[in-house]
């Protein structure tokens, strides 16, 4: 086939693309491959996988739809994007489930092969939306992708069912052409993945190439798009998801501390991938124990810490509930322990594959007694690495359990990561006690397990196998210094206060909170924590793009807070705190600083949107400036900035 129409190449600064199909259609894999191609091309990017909790909901139904959204750009971006510019819908259910997110004017590529009256009826379409004009506002490209896939692989003699399973690769080939993605890595990937099944391998590669060539030769498309590589700081980059970054960060932390790592974990969405990744890393002296339940997982980790290893446990909210008592024991024993909570929508089983940040108060306070511990939260997928290293530093230095908060959005989402040099990571000194640290009344050298470092208040830590320092510890209250059981009222009060002071003192070793307030004239500060970093940043850029003054800061340390937090809060007229919960950080800030922060709470199981935040921020900026309700326009303007306004680039 020879083209009669020449193809125009259009420059774009950024694109949001969403692949949607049935759970069995391989949309996550397709998205991952497009991401890898995009990363190797050098765009900045951010991804949002979204899949049902059911492994295979009935095929062709709305609950069975799985999608993967990718935002890529020629400049640095912060979110996977609110709304797709291109939707690839592999069946009617995927079209129906995703269309409401797609703005008018966007491109919708549809596989028509399943658009039979029966399939359409099943999901509540009375008429074929491809034919009744319902999609007029979109640029619809309706193609029989399945049919063309089957055709393209017929030489391999597969059954129609097997042949049609390569349709995701056909679609990937087509959009790879459309956005001029480099394709070699996908071909290599398919060669490796299906190395053991030559006909499946060849069929997938053939379908991928056929899709690409279809774009080139068919006249469906008169434009191709180009998104230039982003200008990023010099360095070597890779793409990384939050869970992988977390796993690597934990290994890095253990290595920098010179400790073996023992992970005790019980599978749970969305934390299981951390267990999977770490189980591959045995050569780093990483032991993974898939325990009988979450209690045993954290127990094994704490037991390993008692033995002088770095004990780690990874879970999500329901599992964290089960671990509470053992974490409390860790607080009492004053041993290092890292507890990662990859939050998901709750309460109870909630929505396992959806994101949320509603475990903050649980991890802060969800233990009996006064049981303070440090709480850290990663702000982006790649930041999970740095947070894990920081958690190790604190856990080992201060001999304390540390909570690391991530969530489903960070866990599965990915972004380019400037790979740090290992030498630049902090070294962590376990500072084991190997000799007596005191003399008793008889003048005999002795070991006091609860003798503390005057600076950090960390207790001495001698591990089994150390001659002469044997001792017994436990969950019963201990006497100061000796660690012997004590029911003395004054001693209990002292120990409670000492444990609290130890955690509070960590603030002396953490970076002051950095505020992004470009000309220092903003009256409103927006303060977030965890995975809202991207959406808040994108919302802030929108507001600034339409002339609003707004300061932004983001907390990675939630307990203790950075030492300057109170001063920062007091230097703004209003503080807006957006969260994917009903205002948990807001409650902590009000309690601690007596500042009436403005809470913006949305708990939908989805990341906050940049446009929605822009509107909220814009409105608050004008309200603070005394502008009447009906005269306000900043928020709307910021929210309505359209796609091509270079918004996220505005800094």
């Amino acid at each position, binding site marked *: 086939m020879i083209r009669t129409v020449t193809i125009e190449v259009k420059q774009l600064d950024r694109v949001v693309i969403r692949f949607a199909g049935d759970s069995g259609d391989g949309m996550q894999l397709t998205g991952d491959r497009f991401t890898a191609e995009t*990363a190797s091309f050098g765009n900045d990017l951010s991804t949002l996988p979204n899949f049902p909790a059911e492994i295979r909901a009935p095929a062709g139904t709305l609950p069975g739809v799985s999608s993967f959204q990718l935002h890529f750009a020629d400049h640095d971006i912060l979110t996977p994007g609110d709304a797709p510019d291109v939707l690839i819908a592999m069946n009617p259910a995927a079209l129906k489930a995703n269309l409401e997110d797609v703005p008018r004017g966007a491109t919708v590529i549809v596989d028509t092969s399943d658009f039979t009256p029966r399939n359409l009826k099943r999901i509540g379409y009375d008429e074929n939306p491809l034919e009744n004009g319902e999609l007029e506002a979109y640029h619809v490209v309706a193609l029989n992708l399945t049919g063309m896939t089957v055709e393209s692989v017929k030489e391999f003699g597969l059954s129609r069912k097997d042949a049609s399973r390569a349709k995701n690769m056909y679609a990937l080939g087509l959009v790879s052409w459309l956005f001029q993605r480099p394709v070699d890595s996908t071909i290599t990937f398919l060669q490796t993945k299906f190395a053991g099944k030559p006909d499946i391998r060849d069929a997938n590669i053939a379908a991928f190439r056929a899709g690409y060539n279809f774009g080139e030769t068919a006249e469906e498309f008169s434009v191709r798009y180009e998104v230039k590589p982003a200008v990023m700081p010099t360095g070597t*980059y890779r793409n990384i998801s939050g869970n992988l970054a977390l796993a690597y960060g934990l290994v890095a932390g253990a290595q920098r501390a010179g400790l073996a790592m023992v992970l005790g974990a019980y599978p749970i969405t969305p934390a299981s991938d951390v267990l999977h990744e770490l189980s591959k890393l045995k050569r*780093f002296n990483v032991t993974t124990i898939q325990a009988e*339940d979450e209690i*045993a997982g954290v127990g094994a980790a704490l037991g390993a810490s*008692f033995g002088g290893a770095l004990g780690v446990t990874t879970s999500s909210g329901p599992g964290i509930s089960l671990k509470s008592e053992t974490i409390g024991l860790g607080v009492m024993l004053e041993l290092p322990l890292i507890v990662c909570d990859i939050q998901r929508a709750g309460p109870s089983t909630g929505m396992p594959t959806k994101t949320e940040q509603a475990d903050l108060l649980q991890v802060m306070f969800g233990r009996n007694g006064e049981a303070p511990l440090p709480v850290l939260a990663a702000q982006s997928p790649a930041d999970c690495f740095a947070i894990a290293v920081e958690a190790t530093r604190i856990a080992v230095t201060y001999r304390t359990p540390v909570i690391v908060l991530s969530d489903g959005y960070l866990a599965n989402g990915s972004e380019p990561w400037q790979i740090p040099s*290992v030498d630049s990571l902090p070294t962590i000194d376990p500072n084991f006690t190997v000799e007596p640290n005191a003399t008793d009344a008889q003048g005999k050298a002795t070991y006091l397990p609860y003798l503390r470092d005057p600076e950090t208040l960390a207790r001495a830590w001698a591990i089994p196998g150390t001659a002469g320092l*044997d001792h017994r510890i*436990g969950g019963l209250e201990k006497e100061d210094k000796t660690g012997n059981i004590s029911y003395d009222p004054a001693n209990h009060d002292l120990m409670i206060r000492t444990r609290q002071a130890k955690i509070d003192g960590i603030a002396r070793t953490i970076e002051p909170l950095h505020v992004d307030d470009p000309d220092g004239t903003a009256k409103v500060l927006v303060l977030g924590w965890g995975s809202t970093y991207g959406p808040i940043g994108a919302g802030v850029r929108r507001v600034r793009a339409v002339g609003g003054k707004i300061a932004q800061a983001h907390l990675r340390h939630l307990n203790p807070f950075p030492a300057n937090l109170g001063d920062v809060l007091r230097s703004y007229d209003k503080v807006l705190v957006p969260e994917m919960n009903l205002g948990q950080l807001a409650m902590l800030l009000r309690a601690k600083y007596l500042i009436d922060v403005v809470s913006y709470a949305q708990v939908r199981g989805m990341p906050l949107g940049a446009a929605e935040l822009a509107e909220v921020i814009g409105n608050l900026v004008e309200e603070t400036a005394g502008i009447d309700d009906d005269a306000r326009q900043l928020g709307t303007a910021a929210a309505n900035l359209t796609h091509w306004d270079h918004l996220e680039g505005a800094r």
Partner: protein
Amino acid sequence: MSTVDLGLPGGLPSGLQGVPAADAPQNRKEYVSDQEVRWCPGCGDYAVLAAFQGFLPELGIKRENIAMVSGIGCSSRFPYYLSTYGMHSIHGRAPAIATGLATARPDLSVWVVTGDGDALSIGGNHLIHTLRRNVNLKILLFNNRIYGLTKGQYSPTSEPGKVTKSTPMGSVDTPFNPVSLALGAEATFVARTIDSDRKHLTSVLKAAAEHRGTSFVEIYQNCPIFNDNAFDAIKDPETRDDAIIPLVHGAPIRFGTDGHLGVVRDGFASLAVREIADLPGGEADLVIHDAHTPDPAYAFALSRLTDSGILHQAPIGIFRSVDRPAYDDLVRQQITTATESQGAGDLQSLITGADTWTVA
């Protein structure tokens, strides 16, 4: 300390392999900590502690390489009274904690001390999973058939109908037989002994220490305060000969005053106690105890000779001792294999991965 012959040959890989040997002979006093022992007068725990303190020097390993992990209960105070490393943890979780410790530290002899409530009620899940994994640690279950520390509620081993503070009309629960439970969980070493029989207790402890894998030892322990006389039948010189069914590997199971009773096969996979005089073949009909029988059904059948109600008769000794690779050894082996085949991990190349791009 003298021991009784339990008839078990050596030859199994030692449970103490990898634990450094002591430089010099040790004595009991070295194992006595400076903490005042606080059990009620007459508590069976005293006898077990004394026996244990006397037994540890016999192991000939470094004192600092012994770690005791306990749960919560009267018996779980045990670690405080020993000059070894110890952790008094939380209710029911000691097996899980000890699993992490034993896996991280092949050079330690790790012991779990637990009670019938601790191990079989709140901690039942950890117990069965530790047993099935066969982690190299030794579990001492102090069974007083009551909750001691919380002042006398019935426990998962209390006899049906037991009247306690929480069961004024008698318990309606069917109790666990701890030995049967352990065997059902595929435990590789299962034994039962008695607090007051120091010789037997010591012999069982020694065999448990030497077994590689999880050793499960049920110790009948008297609680004079909340469940006194629970084990009278097997302690009273008047009755004990007919009450204790002694298990000695390789010997016919014969007992009773003048050996008038014995254990014979009885129908499908079960055993029964009979008067030897009534047996057609006499002593020749008795079961010869073989603790190495691979099929746990045999040991299970033995365990069923224990009364589930008020105790009148119970087998005492080693029910089962078989070889199966220990979980922690296998876990460490995988680390060694991975390190040997792929080389020790290089962190920089790990985090860099295969798919990178460079911005100049």
